[in-house]
């Protein structure tokens, strides 16, 4: 049952001189889903979003939004999309209301609509009290919410969120996540870029991991986790000296070689069901006493380390080449 994707790219390429931001990227975002584009700084995430939102021309390949080509039919694409980004692109010298009203007018909403829609959005993003204050007095979290509201003025079917929570504190991030989740339940397709693994895990139905301009893995958060070997038993022995014996005893039930780390035995397992009992039995047979045993599910951090050979970067702003 294949329906037309809301966003599709085929072999998308873009270089800035010698810097190859995108080296042939294929993406497919199903209508009504949340798609997470996950990658470290400079991976090419922002470049992909800028091409999809008609801000940048690709060097090669093609991209379409709601069936319209982003190069040949850019004007049609702009009518279908909303963009919110890491810069919180709102005018500091206007009030919250004036910002949204202006955006509504520039979307050519019918007379009277921009104002009504602005009030409506300010209220649903909990900004009514600040509606008539200049944005430069807003907190970081309020700016991001206003930025997201601005992206929603024309009720676009496809929303692009470029690192929507980069630089926000935990509370503001959670508030923004709630707002995004509420949107999705309304049927909007969302393409989200993030370098926060927990963000993709929480919000996205499907994830593409991108590194150095290439998609290096795709799937649901669950599929990606199982790709790094599923789950893992962490066993702490009463006598840490007997680690090597435990590794030998458990090798048969492991999906990959068990190893020692921080005084514990780590045992990658393909299937958690039954393996705890199995492990306990084998160690018992070998006469090795267990102090503690637990199962850990891999995080997307593990996925990332496994796929790219380097850890995801959590700190700092996106350092991608900007089009100046």
């Amino acid at each position, binding site marked *: 049952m294949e329906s037309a994707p809301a966003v599709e790219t085929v072999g998308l390429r873009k270089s*800035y001189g010698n810097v190859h931001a995108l080296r042939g990227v294929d993406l497919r975002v199903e209508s009504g889903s949340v798609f997470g584009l996950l990658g470290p700084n400079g991976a090419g995430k922002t470049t992909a979003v*800028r091409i999809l*939102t*008609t*801000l*940048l*021309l690709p060097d090669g390949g093609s991209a379409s939004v709601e069936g319209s080509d982003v190069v040949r039919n850019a*004007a049609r694409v*702009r*009518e279908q*999309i909303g*963009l919110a*980004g890491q*810069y*919180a*692109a*709102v*005018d*500091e*010298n*206007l009030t919250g209301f*004036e910002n949204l009203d*202006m*955006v509504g*007018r*520039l*979307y*050519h909403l019918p007379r009277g609509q921009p104002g009504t829609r602005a009030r409506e959005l300010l209220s649903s993003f909990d900004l009514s009290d600040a509606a008539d204050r*200049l944005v430069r007095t807003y907190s970081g979290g309020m700016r991001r919410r206003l930025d997201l509201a*601005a992206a929603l003025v024309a009720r676009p079917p496809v929303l692009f969120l470029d690192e929507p929570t980069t630089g926000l504190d935990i509370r503001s991030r959670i508030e923004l996540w709630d707002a995004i989740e509420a949107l999705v339940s309304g049927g909007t397709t969302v393409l989200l870029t993030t370098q926060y693994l927990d963000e993709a895990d929480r919000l996205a139905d499907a994830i593409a991991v991108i590194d150095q301009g290439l998609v290096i893995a795709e799937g649901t958060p669950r599929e990606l986790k199982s790709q790094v070997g599923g789950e893992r038993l962490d066993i702490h022995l009463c006598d840490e000296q007997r680690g090597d014996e435990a590794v030998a005893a458990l090798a048969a039930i492991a999906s990959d070689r068990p190893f020692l780390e921080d005084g514990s035995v780590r045992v990658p397992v393909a299937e958690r069901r039954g393996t705890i009992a199995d492990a306990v039995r084998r160690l018992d047979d070998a006469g090795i006493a267990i102090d503690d045993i637990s199962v850990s599910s891999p995080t997307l951090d593990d996925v990332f380390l496994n796929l790219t050979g380097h850890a995801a970067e959590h700190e700092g702003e996106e350092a991608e080449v900007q*089009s*100046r």
Partner: protein
Amino acid sequence: MKALRYGISDTLVLAKRSLLRIPRQPDLLVGFTIQPILFILLFVYVFGGAISTPGLDYVDFLIPGIIVQSIVFGGFVTALGLSDDLKKGLIDRFRSLPMTRSALLTGRTLGDVATNIFQLVVMFSVGLLIGFNFSSSVGEVVAGILLLLLIGYAFSWVFAFIGLSSSSPEASNAYGFTILFPITFVSSAFVPVDTMPSWLQPIAEHNPFTYMVNAARALFLGLPAGDNVWLALVWTLAIIAVFAPLSAWKYRRVVAQ
């Protein structure tokens, strides 16, 4: 037809945005009011006594010149605004909207016309208070004011280009003033050209800014205009014809690199 209607409405929406900024940024408001007033007072009362302008009171000589200079710099808001929009990512928001693309530029430059009118009112009022007199016909005064507004509009496009070419509002400030300040001073705006050293005189005489100042002086003071009005008009139109397309080109490049 629809495209034209949207083009006009988008321009007006963005001109309004550009204007709303001014009263909300005290430094800009100072730049448009107190600063030119101070300049007028400094020149008239500090330098004026030392500058001899045969046949004219210095205040009559100065006001048209200093007003042309202020009008030229009025477009600075456009440079500041555009480089700020670039830096803060607002240009991306505008470019992702289904609006007329050039409206960001036409809106800003149109907004400048309104600030220029405001500048004219402030500066003529101060001038009249300290002894400036219009000594020409109403028709000439009106023509002079229209010429001033056209000059201001032309330099808004110069500033649009500067703003789109600089990496920050501070940089556009530095570029704008470094380039335009000497040009406005090596002219007939503040002193008669024939008091300058002989090697400098030809430069000052053929400075387009001198034509503009001489044209304003002729139209407001009822002096013989010679070719000054026509030359000023031709230069002004030429500046628009060069810098409007250049800015539009730069804006597309900044966008679609």
